[in-house]
Every structure is written in structure tokens, then in C-alpha cells.
């Protein structure tokens, strides 16, 4: 089997044992990127030389006997929202075109230290605002399963790169579903850790109280290895949890869910859901029962208002977070002809540098925070947030994990929802509650929808710091289905 088809764990073992070098592995992936990138367009930035230099440096560290983690030498693609010292970081926005951060994000720095080699920076919806990666200021990314469809979003470049075997691993950020939804629609594993379980330092903020870095991989164990490699307390992030990271690697190798209590959230399903998605979900419920889990239906009534609450909280925070893009200290500057004031240059730059979705959300957030509207909108949304957390809390008294389809539909065609923000927002219907309450949630592939033969994901939601439960259930589902399918779901994907 070629290097690009191996799992991250296998690659790490090959490199550790000297059967392959990090440079060879990086080269194989760079070649794959070169080959399929014209079709997939997952990346915003690739620099062969920088990558190979990193790989050679890792090989040298290994040769020197430095003790590195299990992923040493394994290549990774970073969502272009994590600051990287040696590559541009743009958040897929014109306003940051060409910006080179003078520092590394904590996620980036930890993975460098663990010996992972950066293949490049992946595409996203501008500032992570979107569910299709069409809102990138540079180009859309295509779903490897069907190039006319979106790879999900906002971390669509990262999901597509992993699904297209351009990278064995990638990072993403999940603010309202931006890891789980793209993972679901590209047939891979995506994990949103507990909020505060992974550091936001160096992650360009969209909505601070929701943004969560997390891993993409083609299987549950690889996701766990990556999760473990970058997670844990970071003193640079005040919202980071000062507690041990749940043992996700152990959980991923333990596929036993006998006796586990699993809840199906009644509020997810029905109208607006694609039948093929519901079919696969029901199959998954049966599968879990067959593996010895006890599945019950329960209600989380406030989940029905999660979407509107999210579309007040996230834009409010973003309207403030994005104020720093003002043409004064970095990034684009437009209209500075010597006569215009700073205020005018700020307004012209921001108008030229931000795309329409970003502007919409900034204005929406500005509105929701305005003095006359604060209580009715932002304040009320914060109360709904409390109710959602209470629903989760009550549910987790009864069950160990909750499950739902990850998304109501499979990947939709590029362009279909581009001009309809409200339709786009529905893609995150099932994923948003976990962002509002901060609990852990994962998406694992559970098959193809009957109508379109496109991947369907199962969302597994666990309590705060119960990340290991997601991995345990995910691993059980993966193991059972892969033995049924004779391999990973991705082998069903058309060749590129």
C-alpha cells in the first residue's frame, strides 16, 4: 500500500522504526497534493521546500534520539486559521492576504514539538463563517466524493484534504459544527473537543466562547492520537481547562460499549432531514443496540432554539473580534491616499477586505449588542444558552452519550445555498447545541445515503470532559461497520 493510504498511526510507526523517513512521507503527500489539488482545491498555501525542510529536521531529531510522540514525522494540514510562523495565515480573507504571523498558535507549536510536519494551510469559509467553504475569499473547495458538491465548512479544506488522501491528518475549528459537519459530508472522523480542552491561542477568533480546535482523521484512533497531541491546559488561553485530558487514545482502542446508555435526542430528526440520512441514523441505532448499548429516546426541548441563539451569540462576538482588522497594524489597507482619515480608511478597507457573509454577521452582531436591543437579543440568547446546558445536564444524568445525525442532509451542490444564508445555517442544526454548552462531540461515518450515495455522519455527544466517551462509541461503530464493509467507508469514494 502506498504511503498516502496508510493511517497516521502506521506512518508514525514506520518513521519511528526507520522504515520510512519523514521526508519520504512528506514527499509522497506533496506529490498527491500536486496531483489532485486542481480538482479538490483544499489548500490555500503549500510550500514544498518549507515542508521538506521541516521533515528533514524531524528526521534529524529522530536520528539524534530525541523522544518524540507517536505522530513524529507524520504530515498534517492546518486550517488556515491557526497562526504559523513559517507560512501565511489568512483565515481565507482578503483582509489578511499574505500576512505572516510572528508567532505560532499553541496547537501549531505543540504539533511541531511533537514532530508533525506541516503540509500546508487549508481553505475555509472566511473567518470560519459558513458551512460550505464557498465563503473563502480565494476559491471554493470541492468534495472528493463528488466534485460538484461542497466539502462542508467552515473547515472544508481540512476535511477534503484528509478525504482526498492529501493529508492523513488535519486540524479544524468548530464554532457551530465546523469540524463535525465537514467530517460527516466527506466520510471521515471529526472531533470537537470539550470547549477549553484545546487551546485557542493563535487561532484567529470568530466567536470566542464557542471556537474549539479539533482533529480530522480517516479513523477514530488517528483522531485520538492527534487530539492527545495538541490538547491540554494552556496558560496562554484563560478559558483553557486546567485538568488532565481524558484518555482518548485508550478509549479509541477500547471498542466495548456493552451496557452503555445512549440517548437519542427527539428534537433532532423529521422535517428538513434527508431520508437517506435518517435511514443510516436508524441503522446506526440498531447497530449500537446490537453491540450491547441501551438506547433510549429523550427530549431536550430547548435545542429547538439553539440555532437562533447561536446566530445571535456568534455574530455578536465576531462583530467585536473582527474589529481589530482595521488597516492600522497589519493586513490590507485600502484608500490611504494621504487625504482620507483613519476612520475612512478603516471603513474602505473593511468593505473591500471582508466578504458578504462576514459583513452580514458583523452587522447582525453589532445590532444584537446595541443598547436598545441587547436584552431582547444577545441577553436573551445567553439565557437560552443556559437552558441548553441544563438540557444537556439533565440528559447526561440519564445516559452516557447522546446521538443524532451530524447533519440533516448530505453534501449539497456548490452554489445551491450560496445566496440563501438561512438555508445555509440549517446545516448546523444538530451540531450547534454542543458548542453553546461546551460539551464534547464527534462525527463518525455511518454509511452512504440511499438517494445520492454520499457519506452520512453520526454525531456522538458526551459531557464536558467526557471526550473519551465519544472515542469509545466512535471506535465501536467504526469497528463494527468496517468489518461489515470490509474496510473504511472512504474506499467507496470515486478515484480522483
Amino acid at each position, binding site marked *: 500500500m502506498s504511503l498516502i493510504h496508510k493511517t497516521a498511526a502506521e506512518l508514525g510507526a514506520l518513521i519511528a522504526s526507520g522504515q520510512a523517513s519523514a521526508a519520504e512521507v512528506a514527499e509522497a503527500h506533496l506529490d498527491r497534493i500536486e496531483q489532485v489539488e486542481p480538482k479538490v482545491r483544499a489548500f490555500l498555501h503549500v510550500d514544498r521546500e518549507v515542508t521538506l525542510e521541516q521533515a528533514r529536521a524531524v528526521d534529524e531529531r529522530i536520528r539524534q534520539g530525541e523522544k518524540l510522540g507517536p505522530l513524529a514525522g507524520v504530515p498534517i494540514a492546518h486550517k488556515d*486559521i*491557526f*497562526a504559523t510562523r513559517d507560512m501565511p*495565515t489568512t*483565515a481565507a480573507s482578503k483582509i*489578511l492576504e499574505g*500576512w505572516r*504571523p*510572528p*508567532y505560532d*498558535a499553541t496547537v501549531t507549536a505543540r504539533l511541531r514539538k511533537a514532530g508533525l510536519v506541516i503540509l500546508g494551510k487549508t481553505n475555509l469559509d472566511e473567518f470560519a463563517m459558513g458551512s460550505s467553504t464557498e465563503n473563502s475569499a480565494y476559491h471554493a473547495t470541492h468534495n472528493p466524493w463528488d466534485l460538484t458538491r461542497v466539502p462542508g465548512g467552515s473547515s472544508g479544506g481540512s476535511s477534503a484534504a484528509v478525504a482526498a488522501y492529501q493529508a492523513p491528518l488535519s486540524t479544524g475549528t468548530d464554532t457551530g459544527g465546523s469540524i463535525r459537519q465537514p467530517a460527516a459530508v466527506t466520510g471521515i472522523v471529526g472531533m470537537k473537543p470539550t470547549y477549553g480542552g484545546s487551546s*485557542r*491561542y*493563535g*487561532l*484567529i*477568533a470568530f*466567536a*470566542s*466562547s464557542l471556537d474549539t480546535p479539533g482533529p480530522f482523521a480517516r479513523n477514530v484512533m488517528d483522531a485520538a492520537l492527534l487530539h492527545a497531541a495538541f490538547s491540554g491546559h494552556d*496558560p*496562554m*488561553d*484563560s*478559558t483553557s481547562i486546567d485538568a488532565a485530558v481524558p484518555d482518548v487514545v485508550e478509549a479509541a482502542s477500547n471498542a466495548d460499549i456493552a451496557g452503555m446508555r445512549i440517548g437519542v435526542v427527539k428534537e433532532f430528526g423529521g422535517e428538513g432531514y434527508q431520508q437517506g440520512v435518517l435511514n443510516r441514523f436508524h441503522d446506526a441505532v440498531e447497530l449500537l443496540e446490537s453491540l450491547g448499548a441501551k438506547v433510549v429516546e429523550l427530549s431536550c426541548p430547548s435545542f429547538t432554539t439553539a440555532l437562533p441563539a447561536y446566530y445571535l451569540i456568534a455574530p*455578536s*462576538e465576531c*462583530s*467585536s473580534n473582527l*474589529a*481589530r*482588522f*482595521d488597516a*492600522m*497594524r*497589519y493586513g490590507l489597507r485600502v484608500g490611504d491616499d*494621504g487625504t482620507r482619515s*483613519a*476612520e475612512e480608511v*478603516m471603513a474602505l478597507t473593511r468593505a473591500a477586505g471582508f466578504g458578504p457573509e462576514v459583513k452580514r454577521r458583523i452587522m447582525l452582531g*453589532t445590532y444584537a*449588542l*446595541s*443598547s436598545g436591543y*441587547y436584552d431582547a437579543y*444577545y441577553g436573551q440568547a445567553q439565557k437560552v444558552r443556559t437552558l441548553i446546558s441544563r438540557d444537556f445536564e439533565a440528559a447526561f444524568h440519564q445516559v452516557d452519550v447522546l446521538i443524532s445525525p451530524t447533519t440533516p442532509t448530505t453534501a449539497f451542490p456548490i452554489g445551491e445555498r450560496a445566496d440563501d444564508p438561512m438555508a445555509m445555517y440549517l446545516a448546523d442544526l444538530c451540531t450547534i447545541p454542543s458548542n453553546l454548552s461546551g460539551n464534547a462531540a464527534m462525527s463518525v461515518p455511518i454509511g452512504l445515503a440511499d438517494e445520492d450515495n454520499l457519506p452520512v455522519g453520526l454525531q456522538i455527544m458526551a459531557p464536558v470532559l467526557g471526550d473519551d466517551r465519544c472515542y469509545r462509541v466512535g471506535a465501536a461503530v467504526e469497528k463494527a461497520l468496517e468489518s461489515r464493509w470490509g474496510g473504511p467507508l472512504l474506499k467507496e469514494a470515486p478515484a480522483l
Partner: protein
Amino acid sequence: MSVMAYDEALERYEPVLGLETHVELGTHSKMFCGCSTTFGAPPNTHVCPTCLALPGSLPVANEMAIESTIRIGLALNCSIAEWCRFARKNYFYPDMPKNYQISQYDEPLCFDGYLDVEVDGRTVRIEIERVHLEEDTGKSTHVGGATGRIQGADYSIVDYNRAGIPLVEIVTKPIPGTDRLAPEVARAYATELRELMRSLGVSDVRMEEGSMRCDVNVSLMPRGSSEWGTRTETKNVNSLRSVERSVRSEIQRQAAILAEGGRIIQETRHFHEDTGMTTSGRSKEEAQDYRYFPEPDLVPIAPDPVWVARLKSALPELPAVRRKRLQAEWGVSDHDMESMHNADAIEIVEATIAAGAPAADARKWWMGELARRANESGKALADLPITPAQVARVTELVASGTLNDKLAREALDGVLAGEGSPDEVVASRGLQIADEGELATIVEQVLAGNADAVEKVRSGKIAAVGALVGGVMKASRGKADAARARELILEKLGVSE
């Protein structure tokens, strides 16, 4: 702009004051990042991703700044919040990197306190509304245009070294009832606050470097009315004297407008040292919408009551208490104590006494000769190039008879001129009272040359001895001990008093 005479203004209107004071804390590092707070560093050398607001950077709160704020609150008799949050105050401005300031909104760390100040023998209680913690901005320099001021500049250049320095904001409740003493009350409050900060050791409170800035609110209500007028806010007044002057001039300005039937515009104003007047800044008529909301990048603060109690019990002696104690120790009058306080001399006098000077002498030199020098050069006492120990040494030289007052003044001259320590100046300038032998010779010469005066003294007109002593002082070029010279003269002439 017309102004009304102060007395007339006070006859017709009653002022209501309010003060918002910003104090930069003297922490080692900034409020939300590890950059140094040292003053005067080369531009943009104390900046990092966080205080430059680079994309992706995050704040982490400085524990010492929180502690200092709680101590300030306790010293101001405030309640300390059991739970509170930072909030974002959103507005765009080039010297504020994030385009929001991390501040506190409806949940300040400390609230409902007071500070008593003494003015004219009267104690005025200033109610404190809140004490909260926020961050400072960078510093813009305006280039082009005639004045270097913001208006008319071609562009600006910004140094963010100061951006993110912890700033405590202390807000009073409205202060009615100060009447014609309003300017003095404002000054006394600022002075007292400054001393409080110093005694707590939380800030160097140098107003000229901007580490303490006062926003002064003034409104007037017609005598007999109980409805407060529209207030103006004079921003960033940066000396104690200016606090007083700005209140006085704003009262006079507003009174003139009201008397002509005009109305006061709610606005920010700027005080100008040169004219002693304020001018209009930004109008607040179109209310700013700062869109405050809880800062999601920082978690709430819930001060541990045990910690707060410990901080409270460890508060130093507060300035007012200390002044009472020192007054008793030094045995000075209320009036003398107040004038030392107003001259900001207490600490320096205390240090001089600690260095060995008698209390009366320390006060005499600092409040007399040295205060005069400071005044002449427009400096604060503390900024004169002489140390309390040096002043103490001069008083010692006088006490031991090495110097008389005149020579002592010369010695101070020398020290202030940078000629070295008092002993070095005495040596290099040859400042030494004439010894007994020298003195006797000079006295002989003077008696011989002033027969008239000698005769008068002998005939009982003892007052005439003054002229002879003067002669001795002149002949000795000031180095004689005048008292001893007088004794010698009377002795030689065989006259007793």
C-alpha cells in the same frame, strides 16, 4: 468666550462635581500580557501578539493588578464584588489595537466606598461609586499641521508600548454641596487619592507622565433649584493645580452661558495649561454606543473572601491616619500640617527627619528655602536635585556650629547646583564659620573702625550693637556666627544686657 467672575458665579449657581480618575498600576508586566510596563522604552519594544492585537492572540489577567485594585477598593472603604466580569467596550480608535477596550461595565471589582478629604479645616466625604480595572491605549504622535496637535495633522504614528498597561478607574458619585470650595475640594481629592496610591505602593502616580489622569465633571444648578444641570467632562487633566483651575474656569464659563439664557452642551472638554481655560472636545449629544458585553476571552473573577480579608488586614497605614500621627510626633499646628500636605512635603520632611534632622529644622528648610527654590524653577519638591539626607546633613552642620543660616543656604545652593554633597560644597566653597581667634581679630578691627557705634553701646543704647554685628558679618563675608560675635562685642565693651 465670556466668563463670569468667580464670586458672582457662586452667588448665582451651585456647582456639582464628579471625578473619574485613571491610575496606571505599577505592575512589572502589562494587564493581559507579559510585556514590560517600564516607562520611556524605545517605541514598540514592549509589544507582543496580545497587546498588538495580532489575530489569534488572547489576554490573560495579571493577578497583581487584580490584587492592587482590590487593595485600592479596600483603602477607599469599598465593597469588593463576590463575582464580576470583564467587559468589552467597543469603539474604533487607532491607538486601541483591538478596537475594544477590556474594561468592566455593570460589574466593577469594587463599589460603594468613600474618601474623606480636609479642605479649609472642614472634612468633606467624597462618595466612591466604583473602582474597576481596565487597560491603557497606545500613544499617537500627530505629524504635520502647525501645532503637532490632532487637529490639522497630516497623519499620525503610533507606539503601542503603553497599550495594555493596567489602568484602575476610580469614579466618584456626584459631589454636591462643596459650594465655593469646589475647586479646592477637587484638588484635595486628587491629592489624597494620589497619596493613597503611593502609600499602597500600587502606582508611581506621576501625573506629568500620565500615570494618573483626572476627568473632571462639573455642572451648575441655579441657587434654590434642586435639579442638577448638564455636566461637562474635562478629560485627562494632568496636574493637581490644573484640576483646581479647570474646575474654577469651567464654573465661570458655564455660569456665563447660563446667565445669558444659554444651555450647557454635554460634551468632553480639554484643559489648557497656558490659558487656564477648557475648550470643546467631542460632543456626547449623539450618545456613543459602546456595545458592552462580557469579555468571552476572560473568565469571571470571584475573589476568595479569605484573600480579600488578608489583603485588608495587610493594608498599610493610610495617609490621613498617618498625617494625624506625624502631626502629633512633630508637634506642628493644623495649619502647618495642612500647608505641608498641600505642598506635598510630608513624605520628604519625614524622610529628612528619619535621616537625623530635628522636625522643626526639616520643616523649616523644606517649607522655606527649598519650597521657594522649587517654586522658582516650577518643580515639585521631590524633583529638586537634593535628597532628604543631604538636607538633614545641612541642619546637622548648623547645629554643630559649622554653618550659620546664611552659610547653610549657600551650601544648599551648591548641592542644588550639582557641586556635590553638603560636606563637599562646604569644603570647596570654603563655607566655615570663623573660629574664635579669627572672630576676635575681626571684632577688634570693627570696634576700632566704628567709634560712634561703640560710644552709643557704651552709653547704654544696646540696640546699636546690631550695626557692629553687621560690620563683623560683613568683614567676615558672612562666615561669622552672629550670636557669638554679639557676645564678644558686648564682652569687649564691658556691657551686659
